[in-house]
């Protein structure tokens, strides 16, 4: 007889993702219906699609280049490679490329448009600060991002949001410069501007929420793959503790990539939780502790 798995299901998290996704689709559908009254925007749609596709296609190179991450061979980083290989064997995933960023800030990220082109990167600070089990837990988190294709999910989810943003800027520009004499088109321009602004705002918040749920899912995946929830808890504590002490000056460059870091490289505090790509550490730890309790059979 096969025993039930210790980790069970997280229906609440699945429900939240479904709800966020459904809301996004409703907002987008309404947006597209409105757009269909103004056919000239089809061109913009194609332009945005091309832009997003290129960004998505070259994401791995772009991210590696902008973070200064260097792909390392098994000879250069034997332990890192062995850890990734074992996790991939257990999770039945193709092995991603492994990269190291020469930075004292402990952090890690995963990128790539699919499982085959994926890259998992860690900083030298992370390797120095964490022990083997904690490092494995962080790698498990990043590999779950790869397994769940979070890059693709977020890109698709934010496509029409990007379109709305483009239109917002475009319509503002056009109504300011040539709207004055033609009242009708100026009025339409303002409507489009307002609608796009609204769509962009709502979808932005929804995508941020979705991104936070994907983080919870990645934490959960790490605990399942490694079978070791406390290792990720202590890794998160170590990383967040170190993050607060590190000055933010040279971190600004990596701000845009936050969605794919294990912990965003920003000094938090002032940023509202609603706008954050990552859930607060305490919430992530609380969920891992709940997993730890189910592992021990205490509900």
């Amino acid at each position, binding site marked *: 007889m*096969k025993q039930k798995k210790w980790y069970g299901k997280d229906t609440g998290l699945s429900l939240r993702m479904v709800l966020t996704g459904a809301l996004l689709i409703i907002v987008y559908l309404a947006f597209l219906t409105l757009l269909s009254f103004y056919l000239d925007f089809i061109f913009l749609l194609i332009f945005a699609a091309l832009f997003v596709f290129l960004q998505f296609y070259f994401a791995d190179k772009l991210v590696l280049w902008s973070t200064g991450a260097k792909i390392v061979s098994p000879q250069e980083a034997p332990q890192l490679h062995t*850890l990734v290989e074992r996790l991939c064997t*257990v999770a039945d995933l193709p*092995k991603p490329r492994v990269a190291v960023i020469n930075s004292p800030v402990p952090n890690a990220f995963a990128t790539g448009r699919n499982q085959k082109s994926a890259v998992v990167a860690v900083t030298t600070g992370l390797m120095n600060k964490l022990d083997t*089990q904690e490092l494995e837990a962080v790698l498990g988190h990043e590999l779950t991002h790869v397994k769940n294709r979070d890059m693709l999910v977020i890109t698709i989810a934010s496509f029409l949001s990007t379109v709305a943003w483009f239109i917002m800027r475009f319509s503002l520009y056009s109504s300011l410069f040539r709207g004055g004499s033609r009242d009708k088109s100026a009025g339409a321009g303002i409507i489009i501007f307002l609608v796009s602004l609204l769509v962009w705002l709502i979808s932005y918040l929804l995508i941020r929420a979705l991104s936070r749920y994907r983080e919870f899912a990645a934490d959960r*995946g790490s605990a*399942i793959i490694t*079978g*070791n929830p406390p290792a990720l808890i202590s890794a998160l504590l170590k990383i967040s503790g170190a993050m607060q002490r590190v000055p933010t000056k040279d971190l600004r460059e990596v701000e845009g990539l936050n969605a794919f870091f294990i912990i965003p490289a920003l000094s938090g505090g002032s940023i509202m939780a609603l706008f954050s790509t990552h859930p607060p550490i305490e919430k992530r730890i609380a969920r891992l502790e709940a997993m730890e309790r189910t592992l021990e059979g205490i509900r």
Partner: protein
Amino acid sequence: MRVLDVLLGRVKPAPSKVDALFSISTAYVMLETKLDLHHAGAAGICFKIIPSTAFERLQVDLEELLDLARRETATEFEMVKDELGFLWIVLRDTDFEDLVTTLHLISETLIENGFDDQLLSSVFKFNKEAKDIYLIYTYKRGSFYPFVPLKGRERDVQYELKLGALLEAELPVEKNRETWYPLWDLPL
């Protein structure tokens, strides 16, 4: 269901496959007669140590089970923890069949108790002249691949490829050669 799992970000570890493990028994006949490969009287199973009480209990149960095997088939065992936090149960027996059945028994016990997600691989050791040759079975893929380490973390890739091609007739050999991961410093 795959699409749904991706959309909801659910991780479902692949189920472990154990049945193919037995195919090494028939393959061994071929290895011995055709290739002059002899088993080195050692095999091992490797899985992740899970810090939970249920797992600790399972470890105790396994030890009792292996004590029983020691009495019945004279299979010696040893538990070794490696530096990456994985546990190796190393078995020693002059009878190859006993090694295979004991490994199968351990695998089944782990699966029955719901701890097969972290089951990594089983390794069989062979000798040819002075060379150590390993056949590695991965549970998630349910397939074997050869591993022939040389000095200085090098691998005898040519011999591995040759073995892979020959074993194809008797065993499920891992098709994706990129996943023929090395296992250095084996405790066997």
